[in-house]
Each structure stands twice: as C-alpha cells, then as structure tokens.
C-alpha cells in the first residue's frame, strides 16, 4: 500500500514538478493569450460561411487549434456552429481536433514524450479530422438542417483576427515555451529555468510597453482560468497515473499494448475512447505505459482519442447532436484511431 502511494507522489514529482516552470507556466500563458488576444468570434464567423469542402475542412482543422483547449468548451462551440449554419463535417472536425491536438496538449506531449511524438500527434489528428469530416458529411448530407440563426450578420465587415502587436507578443511567449525545452536538452534543470526566466522577462517587458494594463489583466485572467480548470485535475490525474503504473503488471502491458499490431492499437484506442482523461493527463499516462512496454503506435492512438472522447462525452454529444450522429462519430474515431496507430507504428516510427 505504501509503495503505491509513494509511486503516486514520484509521478507527481516527475511529470509536474519538473515541468511547471519551463513547460506548464508558459503553455498556460500562451493559451490564455490566445483566448484574450485572438478574436475567436471572427474565426467562427468564417467557419459558418458556405465554401468548398476542402477549404472549410482545412479552415476548421486549423481554427480549432485556437478556439478551445478542452472538451468542456468544445461542445458548445461545435454545436453553436452546427445550429448556426455550418456543415455537419465542420462541426465534428472542431469537436475532434480541439481536444486531440491543441497548444497545451502539444507542448506537454513534446516535453514529456519528445518532439517527434508531438509532431505525429498534430499530423495524425489533422488527417483524421479530414476523414471524420468527410464521413460525417457523407452519412448525414441528406439531412438538411435549417439554421436557426436569426441574424444574417454575414454581410457585415469582419474585424481583424489578431493585431500585429498581439501576434508579436504571442510569438515571444511561444519562444519562452520552446527554446528552454529544445535548446537545453541535457545538463541541470536550472539551466532551463534561467533561460526561461530571461525569455519571460523579455515578453513581460514588451507586454508592459506595448499594451494597456487592462489588456494585460484580461490576459492574466484568462490564463488563471486555464490554471484553475486544468491544474487540479492534472495533479490528481498524474497521481492516479503513478498508482496505476505501479499496480499494472508489466507483462500485461507488453502482451496487450506492446508492439504495433492492430490489436494493440485497437485496445489503446478503446481505452482512450471510453475513459475520461482530464486535459493534459493523457501525456503522463502514455509515458508511464510506454516505460512499461507499450508500443509507439498504440501510444499515439491513446494520445489522440484520450482527451477528446469518454463515456460522459459520448452522452453529451448524443444529447446535443442526436444519438445517430454520436454513434457514427464514435465508431469512426475508434476505427480511424486503430488504423492510424497501426500505420504510424509500422511505417512512420519504424526503427
């Protein structure tokens, strides 16, 4: 019993303590900055417009990167778009991409599992987004939803998505997030902290000079919301991950999730699709399983399906979009997740 609790605390130390300053703090600041400086209303306005499938799908995949960071905000956004006149494909792309790959998840994945895994996560999520969008439009194209939107505000001129000075500030924050983790790969953790502190001082000074105090307050308030919503769940999640890692026999993991077979990928996808992972906890969970012998392909599958899908999430989607669409969506994701895990495991990550 004592061993198990100790394992939980060790996991907290490994996955949280050594990542707070150089990964989580800048990532939260970046996410808060995206929310407060980028005009998401304008992005969503573009998404509601009629346009070709290719351009609307690409736009939706990129946009969801900036629109929401966790599954709790993504359902209202996706359903708002759907009932506001966007196609069913676009709505489900948003629903899929935002939790599967977003700023917070990517930086934490990169920091724990390496840049190649983070990169694979983006590429796989976007490929899956296009397939999900196509399948949903094919399956439900005959269903003409009459948009309930009353105001035809599409003819009004749209505001700018992002001011130039905000773009520059976000870029500086991004540097403070990436450089310490990628420039300093070895040596004591203190070196990373020093570089992080210097870069943080730079963007803080720029913010102070270029922005009114009100804008900075708004930014910090949004950042604090992310911390408040995500951090407690992350601590709890990581503790549970440590405990599970201690309790699960290594041979099980090797047998059921090892290698890059279709079966391993399918099981990983299923675990991800059914169980609830708080935003960000999927990365330490996968990292723990990989140390116990999980293959890289199944690891990717679990990273993709973990944060976006869970039993409670299925029910929420079914309530909003209807049972039939929820069923097709979940079945599609499980199928695609399996194939993508198997494909990346055998052909992309292959030694």
């Amino acid at each position, binding site marked *: 019993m004592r061993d198990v609790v100790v394992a939980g605390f060790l996991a907290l130390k490994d996955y949280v303590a050594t990542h707070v300053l150089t990964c989580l703090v800048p990532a939260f600041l970046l996410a808060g900055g995206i929310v*407060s400086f980028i005009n998401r209303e304008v992005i969503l306005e573009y998404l509601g417009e009629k346009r070709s499938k290719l351009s609307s799908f690409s736009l939706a995949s990129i946009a969801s990167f900036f629109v929401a960071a966790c599954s709790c905000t993504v359902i209202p956004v996706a*359903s708002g778009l759907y*009932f506001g006149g966007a196609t069913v494909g676009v709505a489900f792309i948003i629903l899929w991409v935002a939790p599967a790959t977003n700023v917070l998840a990517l930086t934490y994945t990169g920091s724990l599992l390496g840049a190649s895994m983070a990169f694979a996560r983006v590429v796989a999520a976007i490929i899956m987004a296009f397939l999900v969008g196509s399948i949903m439009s094919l399956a439900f194209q005959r269903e003409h939803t009459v948009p*309930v939107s009353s105001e035809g505000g599409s003819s009004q001129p749209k505001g700018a998505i992002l001011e130039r000075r905000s773009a520059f500030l976000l870029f500086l924050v991004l540097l403070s997030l990436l450089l310490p983790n990628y420039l300093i790969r070895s040596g004591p953790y203190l070196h990373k902290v020093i570089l992080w502190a210097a870069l943080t001082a730079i963007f803080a000074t720029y913010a102070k000079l270029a922005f009114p105090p009100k804008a900075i307050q708004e930014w910090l308030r949004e950042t604090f919301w992310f911390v408040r919503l995500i951090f407690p769940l992350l601590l709890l999640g990581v503790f549970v991950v440590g405990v599970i890692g201690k309790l699960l026999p290594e041979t099980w993991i090797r047998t059921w999730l090892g290698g890059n077979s279709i079966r391993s990928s399918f099981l990983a996808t299923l675990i991800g699709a059914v169980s609830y992972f708080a935003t960000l906890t999927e990365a330490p969970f996968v990292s723990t399983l990989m140390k116990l012998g999980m293959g890289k392909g199944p690891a990717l599958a679990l990273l993709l399906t973990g944060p976006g899908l869970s039993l409670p999430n299925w029910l929420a989607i079914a309530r909003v979009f209807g049972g039939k669409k929820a069923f097709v969506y979940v079945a599609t994701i499980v199928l695609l997740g399996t194939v993508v895990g198997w494909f990346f495991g055998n052909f992309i990550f292959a030694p």
Partner: protein
Amino acid sequence: MNIAVFGMGCPKCKATEHNVREACRALGIDAEVTHVADPREFAKMGVRMTPAVVVDGTVLFSGKVPTVEELKEALQKLRS
C-alpha cells in the same frame, strides 16, 4: 429585466452567473436570472462562444467571464 446566462454548466458559466447576481445586487436591480443550456438557443441569438450574458434579447458579453465591474457598467448603460 430578464438576464440569461448562456452556457452548458461549465465552471466558467457558473462564475458568470455568480457575477451577474452580484452586479444586480450591487445596483439594486430586481432581475430574473436564468441559465440557458440549449445550443439551439445559442444559435438563435447568434452567440458563438460561451459563457454569454444576454439581457432582454441583447448579447452583452460572449466568450468570457465578465467581471462584476464590467457587468455593472454594462447594465447601468442599458438602464439609462
């Protein structure tokens, strides 16, 4: 005055409702505060980001948790 908070029960929406009640109390407004969770209603009002605050059919805030101060200012402007 009818104030509706649009949101699907997330912590941000609850905080918004709390701030709305606080602002009404501070201004002495006797308003009926409701919570709307149906995404069809969001679309009908043109609300794209939750939480949103809708007063008598006008969207005052959307996509963020307004502070009590911001709410007081906006409500006062609406009253005059």
